[in-house]
Every structure is written in structure tokens, then in C-alpha cells.
């Protein structure tokens, strides 16, 4: 498996002199399987997918029609905004399958993703796309993707349904855990508070611990874990509780406990400058088990 980062930023693209080195595009990952005729799996369609699409036009398309699978972790805008600019969707020869989670409250995946292509937002309509696009709703579970690739999906803790992906191929494991926040006890835990209820406080602790444990088990032993680390622990505690993102401290500790081999800190806050990321690197990326780094646009990792 070969993984390449085309977008590593959270929330909104943030190009500019302060984000040149780590990149300003929102999430998009390219996963190649050279032994499977260079099969391509894409994770997320943030603004980074635009460049990936252009590269595919210059390389894959020369070899023949494009067949690819796009896995969306969730449908928040920063993870789908690049879709209308992904050139292969305009080719009649392209076969694209889009997978992603959708809650019963929302519209189908086709409407959520394709709905960006309406005249109100964009000059081309969804119905005018030439490619053959198939949408598949995903829930938590396991799936055989053929060619010896196994996929396990896991619900994460984010304000909308959001999936973590675990791809396994020939003993190698790539795992994504974004966007997610550690589960925490929402019930009152202060015994002096009149609302305090011992049983509730206890169950809340138990469930939060159990859910966090399940997530660690989900990415246990991964050769590469791509984890949401939008904030530092201080930032998180100060004002970001409930926003659906993790702190670097939490993610690193969890990955270490889970025996992860390599870890990409990912979904950088749009306010984070290159210099700050360098500084944070010296703070958080010191260990060797796991080997930790802040994801950069253009970075390639061989598993």
C-alpha cells in the first residue's frame, strides 16, 4: 500500500505564506495498491482532491478509463468540497463508487455530495456529470473490497455520523480516525451538585471509557494511523469541548497504548502556521513507538 496526502487541513482551505510547507488543502488521501494493477482508493474529497484529480488525468487516464473508489469519512463540507473540481467525474469513461455514512435524518449520499452541483453553487448540475457514479451508504461493519483488501468501519465521535476506516491488505494496516473527539462522561460527576446521581455518573464513566477503548482496539497495531489532532490539549480544554476534534496529547497517548507503528497527526487547525507545526513537532514527535509526524501535503508513505 502506498499512501499520499493531498490535503491535511481541517475546516477550510487556508492557502498563504504561513501554510506553504504543510499545505492548506482540506482532507484527501490517495491509497495505491501497486500489486493490484495500481488500484486507487481515495479517502475524502476535500479541496486536496482537485490536485489528485489533475494528476490522475495526466497519468492514470493515459493508461485507460479511470476506475476508482472514494470513501468519505463524513459529509461535513471540508471533506466533500473538492468533489465538483475532481476532473474525472466529467469523463464518460470514468467509473466511480462513492462510499460514506449517512444518518436517517439526512438525505441520501447522492443528494448530500451531488447536491453541491446545483446552479446555486456551481455552474454544472449533478445530472450533467458524465461519469458513472454509484453511491453506497456505509454503516459500522466489515466489507470485502475484493483483491484481498478488507475494510472495517467504526463510528467516531463527531456531531454527525462519521466513520473511521481500517484497510487491511497483505498483513498491512492503514487506519483513519478523523474527525473525532474522545468520548467523555456528559453526566454530572460532582457529588456535591444536587443533580448528581451516582449510578448515572458511574455509567457515564463506564461508557466513555468503553467507547474510547473500542476505538483504540479499532486502530490497534496499525502500520499507519491518520488521526484528528486539530488542537493541543490546552486549546481543547479551554474552549473546544464538544466540537468533535481531538487533542494531540490524547491521540498520541491512545495510539501509543494501541501499539500503532506510525502515526500521522492530521486535520490541522486552519490557524496553525508552518512555524507552529514545526514547534509542535519538536514537542510531540519525539518517540519511536509509534513514530509520529504532522502530515504534510505531498507526503508519501509506503506500508
Amino acid at each position, binding site marked *: 500500500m502506498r499512501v499520499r496526502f493531498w490535503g491535511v487541513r481541517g475546516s477550510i482551505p487556508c492557502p498563504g505564506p504561513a501554510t506553504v510547507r504543510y499545505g492548506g488543502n482540506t482532507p484527501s488521501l490517495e491509497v495505491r495498491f501497486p500489486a493490484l494493477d495500481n488500484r486507487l482508493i481515495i479517502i475524502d474529497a476535500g479541496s486536496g482532491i482537485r490536485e489528485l484529480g489533475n494528476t490522475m488525468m495526466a497519468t492514470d487516464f493515459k493508461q485507460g478509463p479511470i476506475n476508482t473508489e472514494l470513501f468519505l469519512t463524513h459529509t461535513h463540507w471540508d471533506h466533500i468540497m473538492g468533489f465538483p473540481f475532481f476532473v474525472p467525474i466529467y469523463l464518460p469513461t470514468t467509473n466511480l463508487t462513492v462510499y460514506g455514512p449517512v*444518518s*436517517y*435524518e439526512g*438525505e441520501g449520499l447522492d443528494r448530500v455530495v451531488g447536491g453541491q452541483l446545483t446552479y446555486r453553487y456551481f455552474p454544472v448540475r449533478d445530472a450533467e456529470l458524465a461519469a458513472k457514479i454509484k453511491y453506497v451508504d456505509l*454503516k*459500522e461493519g466489515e466489507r470485502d473490497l475484493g483483491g484481498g483488501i478488507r475494510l472495517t468501519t467504526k*463510528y467516531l*465521535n463527531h*456531531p454527525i*455520523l462519521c466513520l473511521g476506516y481500517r484497510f487491511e491488505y497483505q498483513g498491512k494496516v492503514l487506519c483513519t480516525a478523523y474527525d473525532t473527539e474522545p*468520548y*467523555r*462522561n*456528559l*453526566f*454530572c460527576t460532582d457529588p456535591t451538585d444536587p*443533580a*448528581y*446521581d451516582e449510578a*448515572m455518573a458511574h*455509567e*457515564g464513566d463506564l*461508557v*466513555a471509557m468503553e*467507547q474510547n477503548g473500542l476505538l483504540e482496539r479499532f486502530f490497534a497495531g496499525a502500520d499507519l494511523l491518520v488521526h484528528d489532532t486539530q488542537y493541543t490539549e490546552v486549546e481543547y480544554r479551554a474552549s473546544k469541548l464538544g466540537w468533535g476534534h481531538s487533542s494531540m496529547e490524547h491521540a498520541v497517548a491512545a495510539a501509543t497504548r494501541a501499539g500503532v507503528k506510525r502515526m500521522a497527526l492530521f486535520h490541522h487547525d486552519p490557524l496553525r502556521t508552518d512555524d507552529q507545526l514545526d514547534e509542535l513537532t519538536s514537542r510531540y514527535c519525539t518517540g519511536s513507538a509509534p513514530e509520529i509526524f504532522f502530515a504534510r501535503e505531498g507526503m508519501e508513505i509506503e506500508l
Partner: protein
Amino acid sequence: MMGKTFEQGRPCMNEAPGISEQLVKRIQKHIDRMPSLSTTVTKVLEICNRPDTSPNDLNRVISLDPVLTGQVLKLINSAYYSLPNQVSSLARAIIMLGLNTVKNLALSTAILGTVGREDSFQSLAMDDFWTHSLCVGVTAKMLAAQLRVPRDQQEEYFVAGLLHDLGKIPLNNCFTQEYRQAQELAILEEKPLCRAEMTLMGIDHAMVGKMIGEKWQLSENLVALLTYHHDPEAAPEETQRLVRIAALANAYANLNKIGSAGDRHPDKSQADAVAVSLDIGWGEVAEMEVAVQQEIDKAQVFLRVAKEAR
């Protein structure tokens, strides 16, 4: 039946003279047998309408009712996660899905679980009835948002719309034959259903709705809504905004034939007056059509769970 006509100009209201005591007794008996809404649901309503609901309060109030708890968990497991038994307790649901999701699920489930029984429906088609009610609920809530009702009160407009025709359930159950005739008469004479009810039974669904609201100790707003949704001007001043908005939503659902609760010819001139009093044009109401339909589709899942739970 053919010989009977409407008394001209008589509004639907609750102080009609000469209702037989026996009839009221029969309806009262039916209402007494209806599962009570008074404890859990009113509490859930009250808790959910508070902007500062705490996870502790919400868990406590839903847990009082094991049936409701079961339905909420079923809804979460089937509709939300499509995984059986993944979410096995309310505390778990609140931590995994967040407070607001659980709050909204509980609210709607509580109400539909109480009044959505198939055996309550004789001459009215249950699915049509609830589609109508859902339409009035979502429309009322959207109108409330448009008319700048504070956000933390908007859910009450949904509930109001959902429940406004509650009085039809006992009427149609105790007097199935007469109720069918009332619907036919309303169609034949192209008049509002509540007038036909009054003509044939001497009581209308607004009066019965009031009886239920009082028995269940619903909020003043909801009792006023049940009582005056066909005569908003008569509602107590402090409840008038809710009653008017729900009445307009009701007229919208009836005029556009979204679902049906037997009222094919609502009083259009009265609806016009309500729209004027709210300072909203029919054009603005009509613009919500697509959004209303989408909201109804989403809310259908509640009906399924309410039905399956029996």
C-alpha cells in the same frame, strides 16, 4: 343525514348548548382509557423546552417510562445506527449521540407512542391522519422559525401541530358510524369538518381535544391549541401566537391535501384572516412546500417505530 344542514356562521367552539350528558360520559370514559400523557411526556416536553437541559435531567425524565426508553433505544438502534442492541441504555445513547439528538427523538417518540395506536382509528385512515398531523407539526415549526419565535420554543410548535387533532381520536372511536357520516357531510356541503361534527353529534373535536388536554394536564398553550385551533381569535391572549401559527399550518396542510384528517374544506376566509394577523402571505407559506415535504419524510421514521412498538 341528507336533511341536516349546517347552522350558518356558527364557529367551532366548545360552549355548545345541549350536549347530552350521556355522550360526554362516553367520551370521557374513552379518554380515561387512553394511555396517560401526564407524567412522562409532559415532563419530557418541559425538560426539552428548556435551553439548558442537562444530560442528568433528560436521562432521569425519560427513564421514568420504561416503554418510552425502549422506543427511543429502538429508534436509535434501527434508524440511526442500524445495529441491533448496540445502544443498550439511555446514558449510553446520550454519550454516543449527544444530548440534542436524544432529546428530539424522545420528544416525538413519547407523543406518537401514546396516541399512535392503530386501534384508535376507525373511520379515519391512520397513516393519512398522522401524515396530516406531521405536516401541521413541521409546518408550524417552520412558520415559527420564520416568524422569529425563539429557537428554544420552536419544538413546542412541532408538538402542537402533531397533536392539534387529538380530539378526533375518541370521537371517531366512540361514534365510528356518525363520524364517517360527519366526514361525508363535510365533503357534500363543502364545509369544515368541525361543523359537521357539531351538526351530527352536538360536539366537535376541539371540545374533545380540550377534555383530553385537561385530563393530561398539558400546558396552557397546548390546551388552548386543542380547543381553539379552528377559532384562534377566541384563544387566550398569551396563547394566541401558537394557536394562530398552528391554525395556519393546519389550513396549509388541508388546502394542499398533504395527508388527511377528514377536513377537506377548511374555512379559507378564516385562514386568510389568520395569515393577515400573523403578517405573513400565502406566497411565503407556499414557498416552504419542498422543505415541508422533506421534513415529513424524515419524521416518518417515528411513525414506524411507534407502530412497531405495539
